[in-house]
């Protein structure tokens, strides 16, 4: 149970999760360093060199505006990664607060919080996202907010589920017998014991958020063109899949590598921390 602390994480991970971590690390490294490696500006157009095939100069060719596809693919993960990171962090944070609040409060507060969360969950997530984005526009913080609204209730439910058995455990009971305040109990006794659940939740949500953000871009509610973004690139280029396949396939491959990587890593983390991830199903 205390494994995070007393063993070297990397050594104990399964080979597949090591591959996963590697994939994530590689994606992040390429995304961050990529612009220094690829000598083209991802948004610079070049009318003379539109829709060029793969060549020594443009390894993956160019798109209809003559932009280098490799440069765009390499830079295209930045936004997805940033939004996913922020949005996942925000939803896990909000979800944890709500979940522990519900678990540590009396029946009525618990029931109230649960109902409201359920109501938010009952609204189709795409609808919720579209509404929020339509109201506030598609700036980064809005997307983060929108994704958090959709995912925080789900996280809260999981956290509540993890926190409830802890609330009845001997050490919480004994803290209560000492007359400690609820906040102190949550922070000192409960949180450390659901951290593994929260970590896994974070890793798992991250993979969904990446998919969700790309779906939003695809539906035209995400990143604004001409910014490079995988979802947007797929959307922009998909109808030309047969004449300029690289423009669509490169972002698909990049996106899938990242998501597969996050999934593998999350699986490994879950196994390592003893939280069952596959059971969690999906909330999109």
């Amino acid at each position, binding site marked *: 149970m205390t494994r995070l602390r007393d063993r070297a994480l990397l050594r104990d991970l399964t080979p597949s999760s090591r591959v996963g971590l590697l994939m994530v690390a590689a994606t992040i490294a390429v995304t961050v360093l990529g612009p220094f490696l690829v000598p083209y500006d991802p948004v610079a157009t070049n009318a003379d060199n539109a829709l060029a095939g793969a060549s020594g100069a443009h390894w993956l060719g160019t798109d209809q505006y003559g932009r280098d596809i490799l440069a765009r693919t390499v830079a295209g993960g930045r936004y997805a990664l940033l939004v996913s990171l922020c949005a996942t962090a925000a939803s896990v944070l909000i979800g944890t607060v709500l979940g522990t609040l519900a678990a540590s409060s009396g029946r009525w507060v618990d029931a109230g919080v649960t*109902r*409201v969360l*359920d*109501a*938010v*969950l*009952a*609204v*189709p*997530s*795409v*609808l919720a996202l*579209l*509404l*929020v984005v*339509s*109201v506030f526009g598609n700036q980064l913080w809005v997307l983060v907010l929108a994704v958090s609204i959709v995912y925080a*209730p*789900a996280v809260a*439910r*999981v956290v*509540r*589920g*993890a926190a*409830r*058995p802890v609330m009845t455990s001997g050490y919480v009971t004994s803290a209560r017998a000492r007359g400690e305040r609820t906040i102190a109990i949550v922070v000192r006794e409960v949180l450390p014991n659901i951290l593994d659940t929260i970590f896994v939740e974070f890793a798992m949500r991250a*993979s969904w958020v990446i*998919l969700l953000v*790309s*779906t939003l871009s*695809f*539906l035209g509610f995400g990143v604004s063109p001409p910014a490079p973004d995988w*979802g947007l690139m*797929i*959307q922009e280029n*998909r109808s030309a*899949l*047969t004449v300029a396949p690289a423009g*669509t396939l490169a972002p*698909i491959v990049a*996106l*899938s590598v990242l*998501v*597969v990587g996050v*999934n*593998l890593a999350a699986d490994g983390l879950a196994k390592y921390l003893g939280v*069952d*991830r*596959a*059971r*969690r*199903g*999906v*909330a*999109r």
Partner: protein
Amino acid sequence: MIRVVLFRLGTGVITLLLASFLVYFVVQALPGDVAEQLLGQNATPEAVAALRAQLDLDTNVWLRFVQWLGGAATGDFGTSLVSGEPVAGALWGAFGRTLLIAVPAILLGVGLSVLLGLRAGARRGTGTDSGISVLALVAMSIPEFVIATLLVLVFAILVPVFPAVVLEGADATVGTLLSAAVLPCATLVISMSAYIIRAMRSATIDTLATEYATTAELKGVPRGQVLRRHVLPNALLPVLPVVSINVAWLLGGVVVVETVFNYPGLGKLMIDSVSTRDLPMLQAITLLSALVYVISNLLADLVALAVDPRQRALESRRRRPRAQAAEGSPA
């Protein structure tokens, strides 16, 4: 048992009310109203004013909400601000067509993934297991719009066996929809199965490790029978919430799939209604989706009760809800 259902229905109604209130609240905050959205570039102030008066948009919004709620309780969802037709007609039509792709997708997806998951779990560590697990992993890592796009490319354009889009919209007959439903349905099956397969695999592994599965094996029960009679029913339990979440997702928001295939279902209706700010339509869609959510959760509970005699006892003896079973669940 009946009390449980009634209690669930009660909380379900609260959920429905809260959900439609939330959506109403947000839609109120949307910039622009239906008149402006409809007119777009033609939106001269006079035209907007005329349309607004025609749509009766200037009465109090909250009053409209209360009236709407009253109507909804009797099955009357009002008239669409955009088409001027009763909401109910368009709503049920779209819902029915969504069901046409969703129900086969659910049956096929759930059935297939339960079997595959069971198989992978039972053969843990073998090639079968790795094969199934890798496929599931890849399927859940590719966004569904990519899956849909590839399916269209292959099965509608390169090898034209199925139509790429539904042409007739809401007028499409069941006959034309049937062949048009194949690709959307396949997309849904692929993107939904991955999660259920994984859940089922992990539940199977856990159940196989239980003492009763071992006991059955040490009783001399053949392997296949152990899986079928002792493992399957019990492994299904933790998978049920995953299934119900997926079902709710499927029925509530197949937006992407319906957009790609121009499929005239609930998801497409939803997107259109958001962009036109068709409040009564959005409200009705929300209510319906929330209803599906509530019902699919309820169904999952009932199936769990049917599969697990322990929960039956728990439910009838104490009012302690099946908290534990549900908590581990997603979303």
